[in-house]
């Protein structure tokens, strides 16, 4: 009796859960019958899809999501991740600013600049700044200008000195900025100042000639100098607020909190409730320019939600745009309303497996090439990752300045080619007198269900195509990072790379050449690729200095061919995309800069 009741109840429970989990049948396409026209006796129904329902009039408020967890910081000197940089880029503007769709460099706070190549190999760039931009803060009711300490207080303008202070603050060893390194590589004297070898800020190649002129001396005569100087770590920072002056209390590293914060970009901070949301409000004093227009939206709020709850909030109408969780992608594509709001846009990141080229078995290039060519990237994307990623043929993702594109270089790099893969491996096996199932290869990745699924799929592809049994090992993230940068670096390891600034140099040189972040030591004592190829190093060094874009891309294409095919030190797997849905009343741009949006270009359609 008792057990029967239990079974009955268990059935009820499971049925109710199945019912609850079922999604409703997608509603028929919302069509409006506008008029019925009778033409020559045949009734013809004119059907149009309704134009986006506009929002009611009133202040234009945008609701977006930032991802789970608090924004680590909104201090330009300390920011490292996209969420921080998103806020920094809206509240302050660099000397140059990158177009988020074309990745081209456009004027930011500097309206023009003069480039002089010096005889000693350095480069001096003189930036001419705008004269009509003021420091502002949100005072609880509205945005107002920040006043200075004179007897009759004057509004504080953003000056070349503020930029010089910002750059030096980022570089100061006391600030301990993670991303100071992009400046230490680029600006003359910056490395010594940052490491404490020189304590005199005057040794750094940054000089404010007057209020509107800033002179920066760069180590190399390379094209991406203008990219680097526009990065968040080189934005102007308010010295009086951080260190205090006659009429301002020093706030130190807390200056970015609600109530203290001062900025000058198209938006400024209204409220930051940690772990919950951050609200920016339009800065009416931002004069606007072609590249950074005056915002049309009055207020933007980012919540800090995980993907799944954020998507629920989007469906409930509380968010205006959200990322689509992997589990919901198929449903969104099938739903007529949601699929119309769906956009899959490129993201400047590459997912790859690296080889420890000093480790047994994979120290032979034929094995590496075979493993790389045996990965069916399209099938992986269609069946496992599902986000419409693009199969990667090389490392520097198309869209980066200088990077080859599939249009122009359809056959560059490495593709799925099972026959060639088998031949490469067979040649190795014949020489060593081995069989494929005897090869001992380990693939390591950091613990995560996503990486696990990808690794299992690729493991199966290797087994099916080559007959190789590759072992999978995973480690917790920080332990994993230690392992792949130590002497026990596994034969194959996983990493991804997202742009710091969208130039192929950031991928092909800063990650890959000896000393780069994935190749710390060509001897292999501290992990990474453990690889050195003089021709490759020469090509990427040459490309960094090349000013002709076509020749430059060609140099990177040659370098990539060495990297992923001739030496095959990595398996490029896919190039990232971002899958988002946006309500139809939002007019927006789609950034390729790792999700870094320029909201000042967005608008909301109202009644």
């Amino acid at each position, binding site marked *: 009796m*008792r057990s029967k*009741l239990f079974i009955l*109840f*268990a059935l009820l*429970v499971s049925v109710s*859960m199945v019912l*609850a989990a079922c999604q409703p049948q997608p509603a028929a396409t919302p069509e409006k019958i506008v008029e019925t026209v009778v033409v020559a006796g045949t009734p013809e129904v004119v059907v149009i899809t309704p134009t986006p329902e506009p929002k009611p009039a009133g202040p234009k408020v945008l609701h977006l999501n930032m991802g*789970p*967890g*608090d924004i*680590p*910081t909104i*201090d330009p000197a*300390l920011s490292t991740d996209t969420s921080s940089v998103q806020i920094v880029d809206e509240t302050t503007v660099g000397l140059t600013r990158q177009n988020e769709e074309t990745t081209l460099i456009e004027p930011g706070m500097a309206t023009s600049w003069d480039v002089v190549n010096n005889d000693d190999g350095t480069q001096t760039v003189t930036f001419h700044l705008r004269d009509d931009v003021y420091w502002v803060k949100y005072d609880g009711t509205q945005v107002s200008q920040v006043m200075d300490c004179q007897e009759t207080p004057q509004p504080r303008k953003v000056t070349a000195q503020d930029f010089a202070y910002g750059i030096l603050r980022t570089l100061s*060893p*006391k*600030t*301990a*900025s*993670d991303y*100071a*390194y992009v400046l*230490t590589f680029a600006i003359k004297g910056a*490395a010594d100042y*940052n*490491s*404490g070898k020189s304590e005199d800020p005057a040794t750094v190649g940054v000089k404010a000639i007057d209020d509107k002129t800033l002179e920066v001396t760069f180590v190399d005569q390379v094209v991406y100098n203008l990219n680097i100087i526009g990065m968040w770590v080189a934005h102007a920072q308010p010295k009086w607020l951080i260190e205090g002056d006659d009429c301002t209390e020093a706030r*130190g*590293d*807390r200056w*970015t*909190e609600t109530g203290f914060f001062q900025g000058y970009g198209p938006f400024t901070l209204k409220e930051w*409730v*940690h*772990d*919950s949301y951050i609200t920016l409000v339009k800065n009416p004093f931002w004069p606007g320019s072609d590249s950074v227009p005056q915002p049309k939206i009055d207020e933007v709020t980012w*919540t*800090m*939600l*995980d993907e*799944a*709850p*954020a998507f*629920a*909030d989007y*469906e*409930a109408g*509380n968010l205006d745009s959200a990322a689509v969780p992997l589990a919901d992608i198929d449903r969104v594509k099938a739903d007529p309303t949601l699929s119309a709001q769906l956009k899959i846009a490129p993201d400047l990141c590459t997912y790859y497996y690296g080889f420890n080229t000093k480790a047994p078995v994979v120290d032979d290039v034929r094995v590496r090439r075979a493993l790389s060519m045996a990965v069916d990237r399209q099938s992986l994307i269609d069946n496992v990752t599902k986000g419409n990623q693009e199969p990667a043929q090389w490392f520097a993702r198309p869209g980066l300045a200088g990077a080859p594109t599939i249009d122009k270089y359809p056959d560059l790099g490495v593709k799925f080619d099972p026959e060639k893969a088998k031949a490469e491996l067979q040649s190795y096996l014949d020489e060593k007198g081995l069989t494929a199932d005897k090869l001992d290869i380990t693939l390591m990745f950091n613990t995560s269900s996503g990486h696990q699924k990808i690794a299992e799929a690729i493991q199966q592809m290797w087994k099916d195509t080559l007959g190789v049994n590759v072992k999978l090992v995973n480690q*917790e*993230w*920080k*332990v*994993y*990072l*230690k*392992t792949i*940068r130590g002497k026990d670096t596994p034969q194959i390891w996983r990493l991804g*790379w997202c742009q710091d600034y969208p130039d192929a140099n950031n991928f092909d040189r800063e990650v890959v050449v000896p000393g780069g*972040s994935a190749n*710390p030591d060509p001897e292999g004592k501290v992990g990474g690729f453990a690889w050195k190829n003089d021709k490759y190093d020469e090509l990427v060094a040459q490309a960094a200095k090349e000013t002709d874009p076509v020749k430059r891309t060609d140099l990177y294409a040659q370098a990539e061919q060495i990297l992923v095919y001739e030496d095959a030190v990595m398996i490029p797997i896919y190039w990232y995309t971002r899958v988002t849905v946006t309500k139809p009343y939002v007019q927006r741009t789609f950034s390729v800069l790792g999700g870094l949006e320029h909201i000042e270009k967005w608008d909301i359609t109202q009644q």
Partner: protein
Amino acid sequence: MGRYIARRMIYLVVVLIVVSFITFGLMHAVPGGPFDREKALPPEIMANLESRYHLDDPLWKQYLQYLYDVFVPRITAEAPKGTLQDDYLITARVGNMWIKWMNFGPSYSSRSRTVNDIFRQQLPISAQLGTMALLVALIIGMPLGIIAALKQNTIFDYISMSVAIFGVSVPVIVLGPILIWIFGVTLKWLPPTGWGAKPPYILGFLPAHIGWDYFKFAIMPSVALGLGSSAVIARLTRASLLQTIREDYIRTARAKGLQEQLVITRHALKNSLIPVVTIVGPMFAALVTGTFVTELVFGIPGMGKYFVTSITNRDYPVIMGTILLYAVFLVIANLFVDIIYAYLDPRIRYD
């Protein structure tokens, strides 16, 4: 009793020092540090970061400094500046001197915040959610358990225990999205995510405004979180009550003609509560200090995720802070449990 509590408080300090020692040792023994990133940092940058957070000091010095900052009150003439370095959980003014106590240090991953900020801004939210979830658990769990025990082997018993089994076996990660989908997305009765209160809090933990705007956020997470605990309470209450009503003194009470209702409430129920109270203490500590999954599913800005993310980030001060906080709540909750024992069973004496 007063002396007993004082003695337990001294034990608390000892427990905290032992816990802090073990935690400190373990977190430094695990490979990987707070500044190991996917993008490896150059050694100079790493040196700056380590020097800023004194990670280049010998471990024993770091540990003693931590104990000194957390446990030893400072008495100075200097007013608290509220900077990252000078942020104390408890500050009080005595004459023209300031007493400053408990500096848990900065967070490495949130660079403009301290561990004390997390305690001040996130703990109140978790405490509110946890308290409501515990109330839900008690309000559902106790009656279910009592009904099941009194009507043992009847349809009431089966239904109650089925509800309990449902609560235990359906985790928040399943129940949460289902609730959100029904009440948040489809019916739009309740907001799918978020929390209805934000700093500052009354007395440091109570929401400033209480009303529908507050509770509409709290209903789904409290029910989702409380249901699992209610099942534990229901089953425990049932088992304990079943045992108690077979005791001799219940038979005696019935034999002398006492009303059944009085027998149950005054004799059986009170005596059967001891195991329930025992489990409610640690349950309270666990719920109130934050629940990772519930907060993630419902987008609640509470403490729960810091227990997890601090460890994956190797954010040493946050790891130490969250674990010590949990230890404090656990010890104090158990102290309350012991005091309630003395009320429930007069034979228990502590002096």
